[in-house]
C-alpha cells in the first residue's frame, strides 16, 4: 500500500518538476533570439569597421600614395647619391 502511495506521489512530483523546468527553459530561450541577433550584429559591425580601417591604412601606406603625397609636398628625387661603406646602424640586424 505504502509503496504504491509513494510511487504515485513521486510520479506526480516528477511531472510537476519537469513542467516547471520546461516553463523556465522556454522562458529563457524566448529571449535568446533578440540577444543573439544583437551579438551577431555587433560582431559584424566590428568586423566591417576593422576591414574599412584596414583598407584606409593600406591605401594610405601604399608606395603609390606616399609618392603622390611627397610630390604634392614638393619632395624631389635627390641628384647626388652616395653610399656609406657599411650598412647604417638602423639597418644592421
Amino acid at each position, binding site marked *: *500500500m505504502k509503496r504504491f502511495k509513494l510511487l504515485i506521489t513521486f510520479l506526480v512530483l516528477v511531472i510537476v518538476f519537469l513542467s516547471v523546468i520546461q516553463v523556465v527553459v522556454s522562458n529563457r530561450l524566448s529571449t535568446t533570439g533578440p540577444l*543573439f541577433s544583437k551579438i551577431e550584429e555587433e560582431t559584424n559591425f566590428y568586423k566591417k569597421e576593422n576591414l574599412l580601417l584596414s583598407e584606409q591604412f*593600406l591605401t594610405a601606406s*601604399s608606395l603609390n600614395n606616399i609618392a603622390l603625397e611627397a610630390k604634392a609636398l614638393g619632395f624631389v628625387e635627390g641628384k647626388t647619391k652616395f653610399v656609406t661603406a657599411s650598412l647604417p646602424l638602423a639597418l644592421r640586424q
Partner: protein
Amino acid sequence: MTWRYRFIFIFFLFSFGLIIFRLFYWQVVKAQELSVLAEYQYSGIVKMLPNRGEIQTSDNFPIAANKVSYLIFANPKIIKDKKRIINEISPIIDVDKASISAFLSFDKVWVSLKSGIDDKTKKNIEALNFTGIGFEQQSSRFYPEASLAAHLLGFVGKNETGADKGYFGLEGYYDRLLRGKEGYAVQIQDALGRPILSKMSDNSVTVDGSSIKLSIDRSIQFLAEQKLKEGIEMYGASGGMVGIMDPKTGGMLAMASFPTFTPQDYQDYSEDLYKNPFVTNTFEPGSTFKPLVMSGALEEGLVKPDTKCPICGGPVSVGGYDLHTWNDKYYKDTNMIDVIKRSDNTGMVFVAQKLGVDKMIDYLTKFGIGNLTNIDLQGEVAPSLKPKNAWYAVDLATTGFGQGISVTPIGLLDAFSAIANRGKRMEPHVVSQVQSPDGKIAKILPKTVDTPISGKTAKIMTEMLVNAVNNGEASWARLKGYRIAGKTGTASIPVKGHYDPTKTITSFIGFAPANDPKFVMLVILDKPTTSIYGAETAAPVFFDIAKDLLLYYGISPSE
C-alpha cells in the same frame, strides 16, 4: 481501498506506456521524415563564404587584400517616386539612367542595380532616404598599390556560377589555395524568423584561403616600374619589360611590363593586356644570347678569352647567306674578349661553329632554353629547340648571335643568372612562402635546376662581361666605380619571312656587383623610336635602375 490504488497505478503505467510508445513512433520510426520537415520550418541554410587569402610582398605588405563592398538593390513594387531615384542615384553609382529605369520597371521584389560600391557611396545613398532601396554587404578584392605588379597579380573575376575566381598571374595560378573552401551554416529561427541558435554543419566547415608571401620586393618593384615607364616615354618605345632576380635563390625581386592594367578595374582594359609578357611572350634575344654560347665554348675548352678569330675580317658566308656585324665594322684576328665587347656577330659565328650542333643543343638545354623554367605564374610558354636533324649550317651560325632562336624573357633571365651564380641555374619563383589560415607556414626553398658551366667558366665569362660594360658600346651609360657585368642586345623583328630594318627589340641584361651579385636584371624595350640599338635605349634604363638598386642595398663603389 487497494483496488483504487491499483487502478490508479495501472492507469499511470498505461498512460506512460502510451506516451513512450508514441514517442518511439515519432522519434525513431518517423524521425528522419519529421526532422526534414522541421528543418524546412525552423531553419535556413546560410552560405558562408571564406575570406580570400592575401598576397603579400617580401615586406609583409598585402598588395592584394579584401575590402567591404556593397550590392545595391531595389524593390520596384514599393518604390513610389521612381523618377527621383533614377535621377539622383544614377550619377552616384555611375550607371546610366536608362539602365536604372529598366531595372525599376521589372515586376519583381528584388532587382540588383550595381555591385561593388564602396562604403562612402553607400552612406551617400542612405542619406537620401529612399524607400525600396537596400544594400547587401559583400567582400571584394582590393589592390592597395593600384596597378603595381598587375601582370604578376592577375585579377579576381567571376566564374560561370557567379562565384569569385582568380584569373592570370598569381590570382590565377594559386586560385585554389587563395580561394579557401565554402561552408554552410544552419540558422535556426523562432516563429517570427528571428535567429535563436546557429550551428555549422559538421561536414561543411568554412576554410579561409591561405595567404602567400612573395619574394617580390615592393620598393624594387615600384622603382622598376617608375624607371621603365620613364624609359619607355624617353625612348619612344611601344612597351617594355623589366625582370629582376636574385641569382642565388631564383627569387624574383621585381617583374614589370608596360602597357599594363589595373586589377581592380580589369574589365575596362583589353584582354590582350592580361597576360604577363615576361613569361608568355617570345622574342629573338639577339646579342644578349652571346654570353650563353660563349660560356658553352669556354666550358668545353674550344675557345679561350685570347683565342683569335680567323674569320672576323669581313662578312661570313654560311649556307648562301652573308652574315654581317651590327655596324659593318670588322676586326681581323680579334680575340674572344673583344668579340663580346664589340658584340661581334662574325666572332660568334666562329664560336658557334667551334661548338657544333650537338654541343650547342646540349648547352642550350642545360641553360634551360627550349624548356619551361617552371616559374609559379600562369601561362608560361617555352619555344622548343629544333630537332638536331633540322639544324642547317646557317641556323648554327645565327644562333651564335641570338637570331633565329626564340626565348621568353624569363627564360633568358634564368639562363643568364647561371653565369652570375657560379654556373648554377636556379628555378625562378615568385612565391617564397604559403601561410595557411591556422598560421602554419610552408617555405618554398630555392631549387638548383642544373649546372651548365663550372664556377671557373662563370668567373671568366663574368670578367668578359664586365669588360663589355666598361669598354663596350654602352660604356657611356655605365656606373663609374661599380663592377657590373652585362651585355646589350638588339634583336630584329621577323616580319613575313624577313627582318624589319626599322624596328627592333632592344635589351640589356646584366648583374651587379660582379663579384657577389645581389641581382640579375633584364630590361627590354619594344620598338624604341629614338634609336634602334640596345646600347642607346635599354642600357641607360638598366643602369638607371641599377644605380638605385645598389643604393637600396647599401653597396658602395669598389673601384
